[in-house]
């Protein structure tokens, strides 16, 4: 079986037609392949996120991760860019949706695309993945421990981060949720609330919750890494994408 992949930086059209940087991973066969937009976490367009891109490409998907901080910090190291954007209040939701839309359009136009596009994000990217699935025509969405999909944002939080569960009636695709039971943001109660709402609305969803795991359990370079949960979680993510994107 031919298994060559390629990963490289490309330029795509983002929100408002802005030209933004993105990291593309793809199998080099003729396809047709399903595609995935990877939304990086608040700490930025970093090495770990690029590894997710390559892993998904190796699994047989066209994968694109837009650098959400391209505008504020072109060429900066990921941690410096993240600090700058964080200090400026984060990424506006509308711009995030526009950047994911641009990434999805880029993927659909690739000659080896089968036309289907999913989205995945961790942490702040989990909320962003849910938000994208509520505002764009997608085929699958994976929310890995996204905070503030449900719940209450504390009053003293200066960012314009608001819960997005009220947008759930607009969900365009099935949702896979991956959560750690020791997490506080989102807490198990926040996850219960989301699951109940999706059930009430009749929206297809599949949630997996791991004991002994907290926030960020997929992050192999961090102390919160939980290999049992992460290994099982990756298998479920790939299975979900294969069922919905292939």
């Amino acid at each position, binding site marked *: 079986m031919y298994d060559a992949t390629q990963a490289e930086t490309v330029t795509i059209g983002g929100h408002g037609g802005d030209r933004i940087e993105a990291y593309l991973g793809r199998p080099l066969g003729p396809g047709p392949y399903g595609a995935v937009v990877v939304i990086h976490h608040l700490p930025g367009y970093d090495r770990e996120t690029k590894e997710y891109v390559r892993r998904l490409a190796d699994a047989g998907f066209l994968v694109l991760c837009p650098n959400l901080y391209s505008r504020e910090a072109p060429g900066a*190291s990921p941690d410096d860019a993240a600090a*700058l954007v964080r*200090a400026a209040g984060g990424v506006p939701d509308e711009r995030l949706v526009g950047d994911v839309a641009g990434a999805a359009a880029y993927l659909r136009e690739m000659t080896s695309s089968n036309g289907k596009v999913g989205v995945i994000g961790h942490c702040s990217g989990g909320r962003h993945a849910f938000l994208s699935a509520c505002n764009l025509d997608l085929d699958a969405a994976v929310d890995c421990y996204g*905070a503030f999909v449900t719940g209450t944002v504390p009053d003293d*939080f200066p960012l314009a981060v608001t819960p997005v569960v009220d947008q759930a009636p607009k969900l365009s695709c099935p949702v896979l949720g991956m959560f750690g039971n020791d997490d506080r943001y989102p807490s198990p109660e926040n996850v219960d609330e989301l699951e109940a709402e999706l059930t009430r609305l009749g929206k297809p969803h599949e949630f997996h919750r791991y004991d002994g795991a907290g926030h960020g359990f997929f992050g192999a370079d*961090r102390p*919160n890494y939980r290999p049992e949960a992460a290994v099982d979680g990756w298998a479920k993510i790939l299975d979900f994408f294969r069922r919905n994107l292939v």
Partner: protein
Amino acid sequence: MCTYLTVKADMEGSGKGAQGWFPVTDASVYVDHPVHAPFGHTVNVDFLNPALGAGARVAVELTEESARALAGALLAALDAAPPGLASASATPPPGH
């Protein structure tokens, strides 16, 4: 968790970053995941000059204990020095 909460302060002084010394105009303090320190959460302090770009940054990631020790050390050092010695008003700007 991503707390998102950032406490900011205006700064007058200098810092030494990856490209050498630069004037520091802003500081950001936040409790969140560190990039490098081997802990789930740390108190992160960035000394910045946004006008010079994202790379004009001196970053530290400290445990809660370390951050409190640093805050105490800053106040202790100031208390031990003559009042106003390090004040911006003690050194007139050039031309005065």
